[in-house]
């Protein structure tokens, strides 16, 4: 099982011939992910590390049965790449590319949802199901196989926490980086719902940050809908207050968006919150030992 990516994943890499795609595509393949195709318009017929390149995603899907896409194209082409993937019937999209205009992502977000597909990112490290599939740039060697779901807005901080868990003998069902952009394809709540439904996941660690209100929404969701234990870590307790202009943002969320406010909201909903990556890992270990 695991979530989002697993041994059923048949991956097409949009931008496989680019500098990042040609590095991470083969790396994902070497990990054991079924990387079945690459797409770069005009380069159909080439190969990268034995992976066939097609001119378009529709063709790649028709020829290889790809069902998942990883997007590594430059920002200006990434929105088009998302639409192309959805149009071709891809059901899971990991958009690693960063720098996508937020207004364009709004349109893409609703389209992806409307067509019944699922997307993580943009500006995210991807998803890794240890022992099954790695789709993105997450350094797989840091993580072990196991039953802890991990979902995070941040890249490297995720690795830190996975590392702390692995050092304590705990592994992960899936590690999901949802990305930190204003508009991302999947929220904490979306991914928590997947973990709740995944039989392989026994507990979840959520790694949040200051700003926005996604952690507060997740807290309410966890209290209402989740049976599995959830642990959280929030970064940014000592962050200086932002020099934000205008007041609309704070009014929308009805939350100060501070790390403390998020910690309070989570704890009020029964989530144990660690104040350092080490502490959250120890909380998970302690719960696993006692449970």
């Amino acid at each position, binding site marked *: 099982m695991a979530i989002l990516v697993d041994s059923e994943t048949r991956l097409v890499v949009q931008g496989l011939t680019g500098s990042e795609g040609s590095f991470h595509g083969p790396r994902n393949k070497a990990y054991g992910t079924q990387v079945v195709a690459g797409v770069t318009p005009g380069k159909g017929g080439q190969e990268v590390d034995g992976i066939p390149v097609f001119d378009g995603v529709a063709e790649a899907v028709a020829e290889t049965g790809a069902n998942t896409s990883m997007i590594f194209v430059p920002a200006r082409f990434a929105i088009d790449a998302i639409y192309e993937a959805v149009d071709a019937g891809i059901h899971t999209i990991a958009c690693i590319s960063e720098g996508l205009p937020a*207004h364009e992502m*709004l349109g893409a*977000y609703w389209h992806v949802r409307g067509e019944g597909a699922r997307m993580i990112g943009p500006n995210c490290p991807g998803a890794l199901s240890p022992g099954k599939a790695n789709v993105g740039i997450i350094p797989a060697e840091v993580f072990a196989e196991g039953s802890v779901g991990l979902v995070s807005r941040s890249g*490297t901080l995720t690795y830190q926490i996975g590392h702390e868990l692995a050092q304590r003998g705990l592994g992960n069902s899936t590690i999901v980086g949802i990305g*930190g952009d204003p508009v991302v394809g999947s929220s904490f709540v979306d991914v928590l719902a997947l973990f709740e439904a995944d039989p392989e996941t026994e507990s979840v660690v959520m790694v949040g*940050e200051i700003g926005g209100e996604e952690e507060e929404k997740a807290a309410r969701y966890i209290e209402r809908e989740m049976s599995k234990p959830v642990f959280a870590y929030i970064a940014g307790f000592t962050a*200086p207050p932002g020099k934000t202009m205008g007041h*609309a943002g704070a009014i929308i969320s009805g939350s100060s968006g501070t790390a403390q406010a998020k910690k309070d909201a989570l704890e009020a909903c029964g989530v144990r919150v660690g104040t350092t*990556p080490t502490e959250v890992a120890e909380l998970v270990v302690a719960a696993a030992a006692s449970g």
Partner: protein
Amino acid sequence: MDLYEYQGKELFAHYGIPVSDGGLAATPEEARVAAEELGGQVVVKAQVLTGGRGKAGGIKLAEDASEAEARARDILGMDIRGHVVRKVWIEKASEIAKEYYLSLTFDRGEKKPLFMFTTQGGVDIEEVAAEHPEALVRLHVDPRVGFQPFHGRRLTQEGGVADAGEAKQIQALAGKLYGCFVGSDALLCEMNPLIVTPAGEVRALDSKFTVDDNALYKHPHIAEMRDLEAYPPEERAAREKGVTYVKLDGEVGILGNGAGLVMSTLDVIAIVGGRPANFCDLGGGGSAEGVVDALEVITADPQVQSIFFNIFGGITRCDEVARGILQALEQIDIAQSIVVRLDGTNAEEGRRMLQEAAPPNLHTEPTMLDAARRAVELAGETVEVA
């Protein structure tokens, strides 16, 4: 990217939103000329990328051009919440019968643009939201549908705008604001106050405007509005080198890869009893050159007593970071102790390189927490037990 009031108003005007005439001035003399051109009463308004100008004395009425010059002299050079006033906007004074509030922003949670409108404008809007939430109309627009006339009508109907002429103007203005918001890839457009003159004309008297950095390539005219001098010189230097740097008030210089990890590092430093001197994110790449640049910026801060280098490699390769550190130590005269913690992609190779070179003021630690403690210790602070 945040815009100054006058820049936001320029965009408003471009999209057909009524604003007052005015002119920009960087000196009292320019202020006088601008006031003369406008004629009559004017308002001299400090242009700073922060709120609270009025309370800080950054907005003054002037009866004529010479008074405008005097007021500009008072305001130019003022420090408003850490922002030095380098420009003033001289605007034709407005008669104000009513002050409303209208904004359009990005509701990240709902993934929709959100209008907010109240007839209780001109004041601290967060207070209105907290104390009279029923007075603040919130209205989402489906981005795939866009603005429809009914959105405008809902705003004025639910906001309780009684006068039909006013309501019509605000409805039209809301449509233009939506066009402006989408057309300029804005994340926030706020007008507080949106005024009604005694003659019944509706006009935006202030602007708060934030544009999506990721979309600036589509709007070269807006990109040019960026005022590099508005940022502290060290942040500016870092930005020029592609490094995100924010100066803080402590002694431990911080350098990491990824905003989340760096924030976490700041927290851990504080927990073990230290005070971070800065926030510095190498970003995704982390080339040797970038490391050198970042260290240059950090060590230029005289408060820095020690440096904590916290890297978890993903895209960033630890050997490349180690190479950058060694290169920096050769190129720059670094007096402070540096504590390095490397994990992730090519970490072993990186650690090996540092151990082989073994510069005297460089210490490696195996974990983030250990490294934080060591860095605080080396900064001459007491280490608390976490």
